């Protein structure tokens, strides 16, 4: 259970980290008790007094110039034509829908955005935990199964290449560390889910 809670929280945290950075995120990271690098990175930026630098790096990596240095969408890595919103995206949407979810109306990015996929994992684990608390083990294992399917068909497939690009292209330590953390965490989680 504890491990599930950690997984759950970490997916949520990582998802937050792939939103455009703001003071709130910095505070949240700084407030954590860990000595982890992410917190350090965040603190550095807080001490520097603004999140502008992170916003710039975020824009360069994920928003544009004309060619994103690290497009944060699954289809770019999973489709031949380097396109956004490919068949793989529709498959992700299908899996969200299977879990009773749809993309929130004010989210204007491709549905296979890294933040969504991480959030989806968070949601599945959360539901798993809820079921466990109610001793509904059938439902819990169904949610666990959905995690396995999703990570195998989506997140786990493209994350390594995406993370490598971020690590290579990021100008701030913050995003290098986030990418590294995400990659290592997801890799570990795949092993966990398969084990």
């Amino acid at each position, binding site marked *: 259970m504890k491990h599930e809670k950690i997984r759950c929280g970490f997916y949520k945290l990582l998802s937050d980290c792939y939103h455009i950075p703001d003071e709130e995120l910095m505070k949240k990271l700084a407030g954590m*008790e860990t000595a*982890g690098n992410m917190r350090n990175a965040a603190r550095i930026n807080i001490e520097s007094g603004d999140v502008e630098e992170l916003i*710039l790096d975020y824009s*360069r990596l994920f928003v544009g110039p004309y060619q*994103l240095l690290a497009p944060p969408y699954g289809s770019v890595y999973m489709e031949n034509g380097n396109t956004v919103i490919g068949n793989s995206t529709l498959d992700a949407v299908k899996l969200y829908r299977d879990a009773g979810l749809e993309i929130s109306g004010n989210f*204007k990015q491709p549905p296979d955005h890294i933040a969504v996929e991480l*959030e989806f994992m968070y949601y599945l684990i959360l539901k798993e935990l809820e079921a466990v608390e109610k001793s509904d083990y059938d439902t819990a294992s169904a949610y666990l199964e959905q995690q396995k399917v999703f990570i195998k068909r989506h997140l786990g497939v493209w994350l390594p290449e995406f993370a490598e690009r971020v690590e290579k292209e990021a100008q701030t330590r913050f995003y290098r560390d986030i990418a590294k953390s995400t990659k290592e965490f997801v890799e570990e989680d795949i092993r966990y889910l398969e084990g």
Partner: protein
Amino acid sequence: MDSKLTRRNFLKGVGTAVVLAGTGAPQLKLLKSGKAQENSVKPIFVRSTCSPNDTGACGYVARVDDGRISTLIQAADYPEEDYNPRGCLKGLSFINLIYGKDRLKYPLIRTGPRGSGEFRKASWDEALDYTAGKLKEIANKYGPEAIGVTVQVAGTGFVQKGALVGLTKLASWTIHHGYDQNGDLPMFWPMTFGVQSEELESLEWLNSRYTMVFGSNMLQTRLPDVKQLIKSKNKGKLVVIDPDYCITASRADEWVSLKADTDAALALGMSKIIIDKKLYDEQFLQDFTDMPILVREDTGKRLLAKDVKELSGKARTMEIPAYRELFVFHNENKFAILNPESLQSTNAELKGEYTVELTDGSSVKVKTVFEKLIEQLKDYTPGRVSAITGVPEEQIRRIAVEAATNGPLHLVYGASNYQWYHGDLKGRAIALIGILTGNFGKSGAGISTLAGQYRIRSDVTKWWYPKEGKLNWVPYLHFLKGKGKTTPYGKFPESGIKAMISGWGNPFDQHNMANILRDRATSGELEFILTMDFSMTTSAQWSDVIFPVPTWYEKFDITATVLHPYLQLQQPAIKPLFETRTELWIVRELAKRLDLPVDHFYPELGENEAAVKATELLLETGGFETRNITFDMVKKGPVRLHSRAPNDRQIPFYEQIHDRVPFPPRSYPVPLEATAQFLKSGRIELYKDEELFIEEGEQLPVYKETFLETEYKQDPASREKYPLHYITKNSLYRVHSTHSNNPWLNELQGDMPKVYLNAEEAKLRSIEHGDMVEIYNNRGKVQGQAVIDPGSLKGSCYFYQGWWSRYLGGGSYNSLIEPWIKPLHEIYFVPGIWSPTTAWNECLVNVRKVNKS
């Protein structure tokens, strides 16, 4: 290095955060609970119109699965079977651009130096506020006319583009017409026929018995319609006149290979033969042209009735519109006034020299225009023409007779031919073949200039021109030159243009002549650059603010083209992707922030509803051409515009010839007076007598040698330094610069820009097939891979325009080209009709081998 993460301590720390998340309800930001839907959502099919800046306007049906366009299918729903199907690989693979990695997703504000491509994401409010602030600042400092707006090719979307024109008028900004900016303007049309341009719809090509294509690579650039050209060979002959053995030349019944830019000499030579052999249509020349008009030998001007003693009294009593003039002709041994408001038969004498007494008692010698023409053509013997053009005498004689005796004759005058300094002279000379043989106003006969999807087909003024404000028209070339005269339509801003707003175009590749745009962007002379687009083009990259917009599968608009006369809708198959918003919405939001009236833009309606409303307005107020056409009809499928010809066919000047209505027909959106002033006789005018025409010796079409008034004059050493003509062609794989980033199409080109060279020219420079070469002159340079092409003419080098700078190592192919202005193009100014036009081909270069980069 302390960045090594140990997952153990990381996870340990996060564990505390987890508790928070685990206790409450799911705090989902991006996902929300949906209904447990069935996953097999049925596909929907929506018809729209492929609307890049070509002349295709092909109907497509988008198949939408689960909110995503999965396939684009040719609609093939035109009532006339010969128009079905239409749509090429570019249109079919447009899906790669809709969902391409370059798709602009949210407003962007520049953070790095100009052109660096460094931007940050902004909210719409922020981007709009920022833009409005900048525009206000510039307008306050330099006046509103320092803000210059380019609106490209209206025909691809009258609603959204009209919205930007409307804003420009409300704000009293400067506007540049896309038509002369693109070099799409064949100046012989206003000079000779008083219109912007004309053409036969492609179904009419089938009714021609003799088709002459002067420098138009239709097999490459008119893909959906070229089947009609090929079919026309079943009943007629196709002759292609082109220096280059292009794909169109290869499909011709006869290829006439001539030296570049010598078409005027060829056409005048043919005309001489037609006249000498008396193969001309006498009645046509008498009734519909200025050939019988008398010209004074002393001044070179046309004789005015008010100056003739025996006619002046009558002339004073005749009431004519201000844009007309009373000229004189001769018949039955007397002089007579030519009524410019009537094309009834006059039996005017075509040939003749006379002496006429003027009101001041003096006498002058006069001659008919036709007589002057015959005199002028004395210089264009087959021998001399052959020497100029390189076309054998026998071939000149034969095709001249064939063209004159095998009507209906269709002359296609391509942009590659008229985009020269003396392109107008070539057009006037080629038009002469059609004029002499009376090939106008009937099925299968006429001249077609097919460049651009430009010509406005119906009255758009109600939507385009809100009551308030004023449009300040400035030709684009004046903007580049940094100076220009005041005209009835506008004045050149004292400070020059300080802000550039563009949509539906990519000027930083396509209009960066002599590198002027980039230089001004870099120096800061341009203080603000705004681009609206769906892709991260080179121009977007050079902008300060980028507004992302939907494609033609994500919004409403109405389109029309020159190649088929169907009005068609663009319709949203999917919602605007990401954070894109329509131009109409953007305009409305900017208007609010600029404290301009917004009622014109239907502020009470959503952006789609407003676009529908504007479409309805355009149809209701479009005049004769759109009468009884409703939105519901267009919603069901393509609807043919009305014309004056039977069955609403698009046949140029049908009404003028058939119903004897004086020239010119109206060119939208300007009123008739604006263009009728070019044809004061109310007839087709071959003879021009405005002062500058006389000074230049261009009263009648004449052949003038290339580069004498341009490259050689600017730099005499260019003859030796830059011995090659630089011809930038249109690619099969792009629509100008649209699709430059389409991976499928780029694969077909080996993902590499090419430079086409004649084998001898290559050998001279030790260039082999596949070498990287650089085309250069003192203005700019561009690189590509050499193709040794036996079809390319010696003395030339060909480059397919449209590659975005990023594929050229930062190069810019139009930086080599000077923005020449022929002074004759400035004696009148009617935006996009009589205006200085771009001469892309008037350019000399050299080529050298470079190391592979």
